[in-house]
């Protein structure tokens, strides 16, 4: 009776969701893996099996590896800056000072603007507003557009992503901070913990669930960055800011090497899956109950 009931419940509640998940995630994914083993060009009706040839082509694609290295640098910069900044701001915004709700809304606003639009706005800011400021003040930093030199263009990418992503993470950290048990905090204060000690030994461990989520979100978002990359720099100057996801797209659709592009996409997926998997495992282990 009980197992019968369970089966019925499963069919009613889980099956539709499972079906959708299979149809739009698992099946296309497996099909994508299969495509890396063929020479399909996206158009032809025949797909010839070519073994690991696409992976060999990927190994030889120097641009892919350099874009991957660049992506790693970008991810490190973004993950560190976003989380440190969001954590600090969220900490300040839960101190109960006047107008903190206003600031919470304000910091969250950039996240409401889509990545493409955001990229175009900042493109204007970097190449016109900053340059005008540079002209008016003779400030070397803004003498030429940040987007026309590889290093500054990279910095621009990081800056814009941090600006966009922090608001979202602030929201999660704020939820974490407001969820902290006041009794525990009071007990800690009575026991003489204050300042950095309180932060390190009490608040940080209790905030680990929020940190897990925020790290995971920033990691995966930063690795898969495409929209801001496309609209802010478009890979310019001379392809020096082309991140991995953008390179995969360019390989598949601009160079029309679908097989190689697909193989690179799979590798990128594996890298992101492994790294975020390890991150979740490690930070989960550090989570404590109050």
């Amino acid at each position, binding site marked *: 009776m009980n197992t019968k009931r369970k089966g019925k419940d499963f069919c009613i509640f889980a099956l539709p969701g499972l079906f959708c998940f299979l149809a739009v995630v698992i099946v296309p994914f497996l099909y994508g893996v299969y495509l890396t083993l063929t020479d399909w060009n996206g*158009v032809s009706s025949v797909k010839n099996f070519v073994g690991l040839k696409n992976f060999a082509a990927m190994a030889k694609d120097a641009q892919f590896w350099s874009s991957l290295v660049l992506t790693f640098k970008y991810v490190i910069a973004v993950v560190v800056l976003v989380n440190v900044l969001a954590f600090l701001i969220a900490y300040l915004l839960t101190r109960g000072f006047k107008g903190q709700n206003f600031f919470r*809304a304000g910091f969250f*606003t950039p996240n409401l603007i889509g990545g493409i639009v955001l990229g175009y*706005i900042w493109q204007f800011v970097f190449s016109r507003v900053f340059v005008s400021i540079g002209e008016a003040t003779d400030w070397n930093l803004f003498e030429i557009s940040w987007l*026309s030199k590889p290093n500054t263009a990279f910095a621009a990418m990081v800056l814009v992503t941090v600006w966009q992503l922090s608001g979202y993470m602030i929201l999660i950290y704020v939820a974490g901070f407001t969820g902290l048990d006041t009794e525990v905090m009071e007990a800690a204060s009575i026991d003489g913990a204050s300042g950095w000690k309180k932060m390190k030994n009490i608040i940080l461990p209790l905030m680990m669930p929020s940190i897990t989520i925020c790290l995971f979100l920033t990691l995966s978002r930063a690795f898969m960055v495409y929209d801001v990359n496309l609209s802010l720099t478009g890979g310019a100057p001379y392809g020096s800011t082309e991140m991995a996801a953008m390179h995969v797209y360019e390989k598949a659709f601009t160079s029309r090497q679908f097989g190689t592009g697909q193989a690179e996409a799979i590798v990128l997926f594996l890298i992101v899956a492994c790294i975020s998997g390890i991150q979740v495992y490690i930070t989960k282990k550090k989570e404590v109950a109050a």
Partner: protein
Amino acid sequence: MMKLRQWKRTAAIGLSTVLAVTSLSGCRFGFASDPDDENDTVKEEPIDTSVDTFAYDESLQGTKITLLNSKAEIQVALEKMSKIFEEKAGVHIEVMPVTEGDSPYTKVVSMYNSGNAPTMAILDTTDVKALADEKALVLDGEDWVKEAGNYATEIQGHIFSMPLCVEGKGIIYNKKVIEETLGRNLNPDEINTLDGFKALLNEMRDAGMEKPVSLAKEDWSLGAHHLQYLYETYDGTSEGAAKAVEDLENGQLKVKDYQRVSQLLDLFDVLKEYNVAQGDPLGADYDEMAIDLVDGKTAFWFNGNWAWPNMQEAGAKSDDEYGFLPYFLNNDPDDFVNTKIQAAPSKQVMLDGQQASKEQQDAAKEFLNWIVFSEIGQQMLVKTCNLIPAFKNNPNEPLDPLSRDIFEKVQTDRTYNAAAVVPNDHWSVLGAAMQKYLADRCDREELMDAIQNYWDEQ
């Protein structure tokens, strides 16, 4: 207290709305350098529908077909055209735009793969070439082929697409600004060598305009429009361009031995020297270039007739005097490159030969012939879509000065019809190499090596 909190909340929401709205509209006002902005609709010209001698096939009435449009700026015009066509022929055409950010090729391929192929698709020649074998309908016997002359593109001995329009490129000049700066009349036809062009630029400099040239940094401009002259000027024909590409591909022609390469860089160096954005060439803004040219901050801009909507937005009037100078490659006035500008059919209409029914294919064929032969179709192509017709039987003259200049040059044999079909990533890979050269972060030698490497890898 309650009131205060409410006030704060309202203020927060209000401020974020204002921010969101201003930032969204910031994009619409043309800061994003998108040459194909849908909002740049052309000024409406009345269409005379009183005369129509086109013979419509009655049996096709009620047929429904689709048209995939990759030229965003004529989306509205095409919709108008399809409406008139439906009134006349009884065939309904749904015009589907390629959304921004999507490449036309990606779009058409995904439509084919989902069993939802468009009956007609406006594509680049490279795309047609990639699809011709398996998907396209052979159009060899169509009536319009005879009118197209050498503007029809043959792929493996067959015609798979109809040229929708002619597009031309060169060095756009603003005649009024030049004459005002120099204080004398200018006859553009008198400039027929690179030295002549340099002399003119020098004269402008002496007369007070230090940097009279705008040079776009976009990779599509550098990689496709500048560099493709290498192949297009091989002998000024599409066959010659194909031969140059083939010889480079199989290594018979080396970049260092091909004199057009150094000639092209000679001109490019001149453009660099007089570039208004010389201090930061990779920070140059596309929209600003149109404004500079129209306002007279510069007098020259390397571009094509597709730049008109941008110039119009910047305040240019259709009776202003703009035109094209050739892309001067050397000092031989008898070399065609110094007296003619490049103009070739660019957008191709391909018909689906795989998923469309016989009626749909016939209806699509009728639509193509209607554009070429009916008085209404001819007018709408030129006046509504603002395109330069690729068919000699079309008597309508284009409306804007850039198209008009190309149209006149086509009529008087001062254009060369050469379109190079290059690998699809040519513009992005070599565009990046050209950006380096533009910003002086590599020398001639390195650039030539990059071009050679590209062709070696093909």
